[in-house]
């Protein structure tokens, strides 16, 4: 156990001490948040106002809903993209030969792989909570509508999404053998994941067939949970300003707080089950491929 935690500590240290990797990972969520606010903030504010057209709604509430959307989108994307960046430690060790150094000691390859998984999880969670903290500061500044339960659920959603991101990154990085390959994968994931999981664009605005395809992607359910817990309170608060319940339900559906799978509403517990189940399956695949690789050697 001592040896396992020594490896976990070393992997985290290597990530945090590599300024070329750590600083961009730290700054990019803040840049993304700024870009969201600067370029997409008005789009979402207008979209919210258009949904409740004909009703009066306070600007504070509009800001609050928009900020909830932006922060939930940010965390949903970061949980996966940062996990891929953190996964570079494992690939880098393969490139530099550090992995061979560990394997000539009495450490088993299983312990080594698990240490990479746990350290990637710790690093990603740390960076995501940093981004979530920045997001909360923004939300408090524009109007806070989160209950304590929603706050706790947001933290839980983040941890679960990070687990899913870590499993996905461990599976993919397990096949990578060069720094160039990692960079290419990171670039692809950063560019595509936000669209694939419904973070950049609400699924409700997509064509039916595309929406249905994206609903087969487990990350979508994680983003849905984040949207629900970071925006739900603010959307529900519209009732106090005289917005009819049907319009509130429409707003929740329009902003992916409630997801539709082939026109049927997906219960919250199903979202958790899909995300946790997908994480477990990906993790299982990691173990299978690790064993296969070991046998091949």
């Amino acid at each position, binding site marked *: 156990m001592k040896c396992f935690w020594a490896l976990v500590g070393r992997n985290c240290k290597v990530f945090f*001490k590599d300024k070329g990797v750590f600083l961009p990972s730290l700054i990019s969520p803040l840049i993304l948040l700024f870009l969201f606010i600067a370029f997409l903030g008005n789009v979402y504010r207008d979209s919210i106002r258009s949904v409740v057209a004909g009703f009066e709604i306070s600007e504070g509430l509009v800001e609050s809903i928009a900020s909830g959307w932006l922060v939930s989108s940010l965390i949903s994307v970061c949980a996966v993209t940062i996990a891929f960046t953190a996964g570079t430690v494992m690939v880098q060790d393969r490139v530099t030969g550090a992995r061979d150094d*560990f394997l000539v000691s009495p450490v088993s390859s299983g312990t080594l792989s698990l240490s990479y998984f746990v350290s990637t999880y710790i690093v990603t969670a740390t960076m995501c909570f940093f981004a979530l903290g920045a997001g909360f500061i923004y939300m408090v500044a524009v109007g806070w509508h989160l209950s304590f339960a929603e706050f706790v659920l947001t933290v839980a959603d983040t941890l679960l999404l990070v687990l899913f991101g870590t499993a996905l990154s461990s599976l993919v990085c397990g096949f990578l053998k060069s720094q160039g390959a990692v960079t290419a994968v990171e670039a692809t994931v950063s560019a595509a994941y936000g669209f694939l999981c419904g973070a950049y664009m609400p699924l409700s605005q997509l064509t039916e067939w595309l929406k249905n395809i994206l609903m087969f992607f487990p990350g979508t359910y994680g983003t849905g949970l984040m949207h629900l817990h970071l925006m739900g309170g603010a959307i529900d608060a519209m009732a106090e300003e005289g917005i009819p319940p049907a319009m509130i339900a429409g707003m929740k559906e329009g902003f992916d707080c409630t997801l539709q799978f082939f026109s049927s509403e997906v219960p919250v517990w199903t979202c958790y089950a899909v995300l946790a189940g997908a994480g477990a399956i990906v993790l299982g695949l990691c173990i299978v491929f690790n064993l296969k690789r070991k046998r091949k*050697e």
Partner: protein
Amino acid sequence: MKSIEIRHLKKYYGAIKAVDDISFSVSEGEFFAFLGVNGAGKSTTISVLCGRQEKTDGQIWIGGKEQSDEMKRILGVVFQDSVLDKSLTVRENLACRAALYGIGGEMFTRRLSELTETLSLGDILKRPVGKLSGGQRRRVDLARALVHSPRILILDEPTTGLDPNTRRQVWSVVHALRKSQHITVFLTTHYMEEAADADHVVILDGGKIKADDTPLNLKNRYAFDAITLYHVGEKALQNLSVPYERAGEGWRIRVENTAQATELIVKNPQLFSDYEVTKGGMDEVFLAVTGKRAEAL
């Protein structure tokens, strides 16, 4: 007692026979050299010996016991390229590697101070490995290999790419360690003069053992001695009826062995006023055994 015993070791990658039925042993405290061109099977043998790769067939005994993960505790490995974490300090690197062998706390502090003294690491303990010179980094690599006090030190082409001064430093440390701690040294090298200093040499070619003996016996069997003669005309040499060639300002006469050299000198004392007798080198042994020139290594 045998430190390492390998019997009928085979390592195949599909149709490629990287190591093909080799058997040899290394005695305790011996300085053993493994010689061969790139792709001869040296690194594969070391990989299998260290447990980094599974063998296809054969038996390996280390320290008198059949190879197992526990045996890794008595092996220390210095890789061709430094595999330590460049962003971490020397101390952090050694602490992490020591923890893999269950060495921590007081025990690590004691061992670190021993290694600091033996390898003169005092000034560099707090410096990141990436900022060390080639020689300093090699000393730290040796410290890493020795951190758990192994009985067998495996050096995988440890001086490749180092300048002559650094090479000398590395060897003076290794020889001092052999003298003070009686550890067995298992070396793979491209440098013939390094192999010439060994107690026992195995020459590997195409995955098979081509020669296995002491450097002296190998030289006696495969290399020719030479007499270099100065201040003598070519005409006088023609009368000797032995092969000769120009060598700088003198002539090099090839003789079968030292006895023939002595006989030649005794019979022709008038010619041998300024001369030197040199034994055949490992270059010639290597060429005779494998048919490959040492420069090609």
